[in-house]
């Protein structure tokens, strides 16, 4: 049994609107739906996928785990230490072991620096190396991410999307990170390049024993990459389990809708299923104030078909994650 590398306990992150007399002077703060009590853990050399629609808080979780954002409450235990309590300096030491791949292809890359300088700098952050050693390390990294040596003299904007992503991965690897939060690493890429990056990440995981928290809205890629998958809806995890179970035998109506929308889009015949998704007249959702009780109830076909039971909308009976079988957990009063 491999050991637990990261544990997240009841993590909450609330963003507040700026109010007050000076608010006229300031940029308005955007209100993002909060992460509202999320718990999960990752074992070494394992990938956990985090899926959900945009704005459900999955990126915020990734950022909070790396303390790029301070959590409102809750614990993030990395390697036995609660990183929410660490000072900035202690945290900096830890950054050599936990890293993030950002959705934005240009994120890690200073537009005014050449690729060689970007990598040299990153290597030097946590390790003192001689020039020759650095040179060797760069060659090693290029080999790991399968990037041509000639690209070292280029500036970021001269690279293609796939190459930028590879440089980003190389930079993350350069510090020797073991745990990596990958935030939508394939979403900005072309289909043919996407497959390359997915293969690359899986290769690296095998070779270097990496642990991934894989955030994506692309269900197929998540399913392919991950051992376990957590499905998020408006700041909460609604279902969690082994990836094939989630994909093929979901218990939460939302998970079901997510995966069936994938097949529906592709097949002309709408698959006949236990729950038929209504040809949607979905209302407007207030992302900032989720519904009382079960957050998904306003969109839930089961809730409709059961005749709108009160238990779904009572604030007191908000469904909690309950273990069903073999580690599969779901937060629903009427699991499928």
């Amino acid at each position: 049994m491999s050991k637990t590398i990261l544990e997240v306990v009841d993590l909450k992150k609330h963003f507040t609107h700026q109010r007050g007399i000076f608010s006229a002077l300031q940029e308005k703060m955007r209100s993002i739906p909060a992460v509202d009590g999320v718990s999960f853990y990752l074992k070494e050399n394992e990938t956990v996928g985090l899926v959900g629609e945009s704005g459900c808080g999955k990126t915020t979780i990734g950022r909070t785990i790396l303390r790029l954002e301070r959590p409102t409450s809750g614990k993030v235990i990395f390697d036995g230490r609660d990183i929410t309590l660490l000072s900035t300096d202690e945290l900096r030491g830890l950054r050599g072991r936990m890293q993030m791949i950002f959705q934005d292809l240009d994120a890690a890359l200073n537009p005014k620096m050449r690729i060689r300088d970007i990598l040299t700098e990153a290597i030097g952050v946590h390790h003192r190396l001689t020039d020759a050693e650095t040179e060797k390390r760069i060659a090693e990294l290029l080999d790991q991410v399968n990037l041509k040596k000639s690209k070292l003299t280029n500036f970021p904007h001269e690279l293609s999307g796939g190459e930028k992503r590879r440089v980003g991965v190389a930079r993350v690897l350069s510090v020797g990170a073991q745990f990596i939060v990958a935030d939508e690493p394939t979403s900005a890429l072309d289909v043919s390049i996407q497959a390359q990056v997915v293969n690359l990440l899986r290769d690296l995981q095998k070779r270097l024993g990496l642990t991934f928290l894989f955030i994506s809205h692309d269900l197929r890629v998540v399913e392919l990459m991950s051992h376990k998958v957590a499905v998020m809806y408006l700041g909460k995890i609604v279902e969690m389990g082994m990836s094939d179970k989630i994909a093929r035998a979901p218990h939460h109506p939302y998970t079901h809708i997510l995966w069936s929308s994938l097949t529906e889009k592709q097949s002309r015949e709408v698959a006949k299923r236990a729950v038929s998704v209504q040809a949607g007249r979905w209302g407007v959702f207030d992302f900032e104030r989720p519904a009382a009780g079960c957050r998904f109830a306003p969109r839930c076909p089961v809730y409709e078909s059961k005749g709108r039971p009160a238990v779904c909308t009572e604030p007191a009976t908000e469904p909690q994650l309950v273990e069903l079988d073999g580690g599969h957990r779901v937060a629903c009063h009427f699991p499928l």
Partner: protein
Amino acid sequence: MMAEPLLAIEDLRTYFYSRSKRAFIRSVDGVSLAVAKGETLGIVGESGSGKSITAMSVMGLVSAGPGVISGRIGFRSDRVERQLLEGLDTCVALRREGGRVMAVEKDDDRWAGQVEKNMTGIRGREISMIFQNPKQSLNPFETVGRQITEAIMLHTSHKIEQEAKEKAIEWLDRVKIDSPRLRFDNHPFGLSGGMCQRAMIAMALSCEPHLLIADEPTTGLDATIQSKIVDLLAELKSELGITTMLISHDIGIIGRLSDTVAVMYGGTVVESGPAKDVLSCSPEGKHPYTAALLASIPSSDAVREKGHLQAIEGDVLDTINIPAGCRFYGRCSRVTDKIREKCDKQEPDLREIASGRRVRCWLYFE
């Protein structure tokens, strides 16, 4: 057999200019396509393949740089018959060297005037267009309803505001927007991305155009919303029978909605034909790019077995450095020794290899 085309694009070339490289970006480089009346043509391709620029060229929305430098676009409906690029060639002067365009001189003012002249009565009335990023594509300063009403008053016989408003509400209802009367007075920021796209569709269809160009209509929307929009488009298509040019990088959507499909790579069409043939799983009779593209999508089987994905090696073609030979040669895995020489040196043309199926590959030419 192909019905009479509503829109026929012949050898379209649209170039942009990279100042930092002093070179042309050949976004669209010799595209020929035809959209038959009543059918849906799906154009699929990766970023930089020129699919969106093709659509923009049709609508006369390309204005930066050299722009559309040659080709013909014929549009023929029961109301109008027009060459959409008429007179534009007199505004640009090309200098060629060895078959390549080396320099372009463009009279911007006259060009802009000519485009406006060609497109009046076409834009919005005959051809309308929906875009990706529906939220940004709607004017944030006007209510959704007023924007639709404006289109109706411009292009249909409903010239009285009240009448146009009723019509707009009717269309909002038709694209299945909740409580259309309320939404009529909403500004785009008050609506979700999916709702904005519905509003865009309502606006595009409200003038009853002959051709609808949908440019990545689902990109950037959530998966669940995407499938709703696709449902809606499918429903409207069967209801109205409107001719559609659908552009997407998402093969799933193209497969669901199209009758015929054109696959674009590096600014040109590499394969076209009936949807079910082009998008079928067997690589038989397909352009190697199409086959590899289809294979690189994680299939249900691949996902279940957690196997290796079949990636296309190399990078998407840089449309500045277009090689002399086949554009896909550098990434192609099906080159045989017999045709290697040709693939490297000479660009194949788009030939019909079976009824309605055209491929641009030496593999199939004797």
